[in-house]
């Protein structure tokens, strides 16, 4: 491994990570500066209602596609969401494994699984981009940041397919591209919508607390029996 690649895979990543951490800390500090409002209403008439139950349900919402009509009706979209996010998280993990624990990626089967995952996520990214351009409602709400973030992640996932074998001896180009993109990604994320996971615990916590306290969460659903459903 050349000195340049070593720098890109190690020091540059640490610098980018450090930058991201600082911006995230500032971002959370900014959010916490806003006072959280209290819930003073009496407990729900539904005796099983509980704020704690609501918070847990709300946080777990992401893993319960049956809990929302939107995910129930868009099963394929939900599967895409899971694959895409798992791939992104794995890809971040890979940027640590390559420089610090390369042995984990020695078995060919591991490399192939990673490549399939990244390839699938890359295809999903392309599909999402198409959806963003072709669906009038989604196109209307899309900002340059939405497009750029999606393109960035898709290209980064594409680059990771070639980086996964981790064979600098066969040419360092793919690894160089991968690590430069990872560093850019880490620096850009806190300013983009990709940082939504930073807000997720907060938005879901407060929404779940209120909905749980009032007995709305967990959502109670009675399966349809005799009437025709209205397509939502």
């Amino acid at each position, binding site marked *: 491994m050349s000195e340049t690649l070593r720098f890109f895979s190690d020091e540059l990543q640490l610098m980018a990570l450090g930058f991201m951490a600082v911006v995230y800390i500032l971002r959370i500090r900014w959010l916490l500066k806003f006072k959280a409002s209290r819930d*003073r209403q009496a407990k729900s008439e539904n005796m099983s209602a509980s704020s704690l139950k609501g918070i847990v349900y709300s946080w777990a919402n992401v893993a319960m596609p049956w809990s929302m009509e939107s995910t129930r009706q868009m099963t394929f979209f939900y599967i895409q969401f899971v694959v895409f996010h798992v791939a992104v998280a794995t890809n971040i993990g890979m940027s640590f494994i390559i420089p610090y624990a390369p042995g984990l990626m020695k078995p060919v089967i591991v490399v192939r699984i990673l490549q399939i995952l990244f390839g699938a996520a890359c295809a999903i990214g392309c599909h999402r981009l198409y959806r963003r351009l072709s669906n009038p409602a989604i196109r209307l709400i*899309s900002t340059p*940041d939405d497009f750029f973030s999606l393109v960035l992640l898709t290209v980064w996932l594409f680059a990771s397919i070639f980086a996964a074998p981790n064979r600098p001896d066969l040419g360092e180009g793919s690894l160089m591209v991968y690590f430069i993109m990872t560093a850019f990604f880490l620096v850009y994320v806190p300013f983009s919508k990709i940082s939504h996971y930073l*807000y997720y615990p907060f*938005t879901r916590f407060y929404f779940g607390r209120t909905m749980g306290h009032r007995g709305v969460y967990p959502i109670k659903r009675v399966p349809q029996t005799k009437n025709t459903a209205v397509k*939502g």
Partner: protein
Amino acid sequence: MAVKARSHKAEKFVERLRKKLNRQLVGSLAGCVHCGMCTNSCHYVLANPDDPTYAPAHKADQIRKIFKRNIDWTGRVFPWWVHAEDIRTDEDLERLKDIVFGKCTNCRRCSLNCPMGVDFATLNRMARGLLVSVGVMPEGVAVVSKDQWEVGNQMGVLPQDYLETLEWLSDELENEFKDPAARIPIDKMDADIVYAINPREVKYDPRTITDAARIFYIAGANWTMPSDGWDMTNFGLFSGDDELGAAVAQRVYDKVIELRGKTLVLSECGHGYRSTRCEGPNWSGKGVPFVIESSVLTMLRYIKEGRILVDKEKNRDPVTFHDSCNNARSCGFFEEPRELLNLLVTDFREMYPNRAENFCCTGGGGAMSMSEYTPERLKSAKIKADQLKATGAKTVVTSCHNCVDGLTDVIRHYKLGMKVTQLVTLAANALVIPERVVVPVEVQ
């Protein structure tokens, strides 16, 4: 290029936005990823598939862009990158008014369908409140709010009219039961129940007050109605005006405290229930030292305790139940009405989707008072009409006065030929009136 100065109203709008923001609101403003999952949860979208401006995320973005331009860092530095945009003119405020009042009923269905937990209904209510604070609102909202501030109830019912109505209702009740005790007590101290109502009942539908009085009388309840502070509805919920919300709720609470009432029972009204029971303590910033419950729960308890007897054979029409958004989606109140309904009717047909996933009657969020948006409202009601029709029921029952009006409009517009009624009316109709045993009194 010089930055165009804001109009006075726009300046105040932004100034008050900064003060209004709390962590929940900021989370909802910053957390949207524009995934579009909320889109098909909105009845306006479903009824207007070719108009993407109805998408909840787009509507929320009209508020979000002001936040981004003025408060969020990325939007302040690179506004075009995240579609951040300031609000500058009075025309901008008018445009925003047509979105937050005319294109959304604050039903909260999109909030429940957002993977990120973005509560658009709360954002929309906040925007309404900010607009109201600078005098930008539909005429109907201004009129109703004024009545609630000045007269003390949202329909401008004068005290003497209210008291006279209760008086003749009492006369009818006394006549019906041939009992001088069968009257509506007013301002009775230390009552177990203080019963607060929707002014619509006094003005347009007093039979629901009689129905409730009949039930209280037969149950032998120690109850009263207050001479003032009797309006449990609250236009502050619709207008987004927390000051009005707090004042109206506190007026009701103060009266119960003055009468030393033990439980405040609210007649069937979704937004009244939410405002008085759920949001009122938050707006007034104080807890409430007595129990607040829906009359649905009171009636259910009376039946379970055997204090009233009902015969469901008296209500044989096939009925369906419409969940009020405020009851179900914002207060989790959906099982008790069904439990009661099953005791009152022989043929109950569930509507789909239901409970917290039900669609709005389309008259929510104060929409019934905003006549300028009626054509859009009725068009969006197609979803509700289809939902009602699919049940095959002849009567739709709801636990909300606002929904009664909203559904009546939908049924008339789409020629569904259904009736709308409330649980209290069904309960009163199913009542088994105990025979009065006349005990001969020995003459000395």
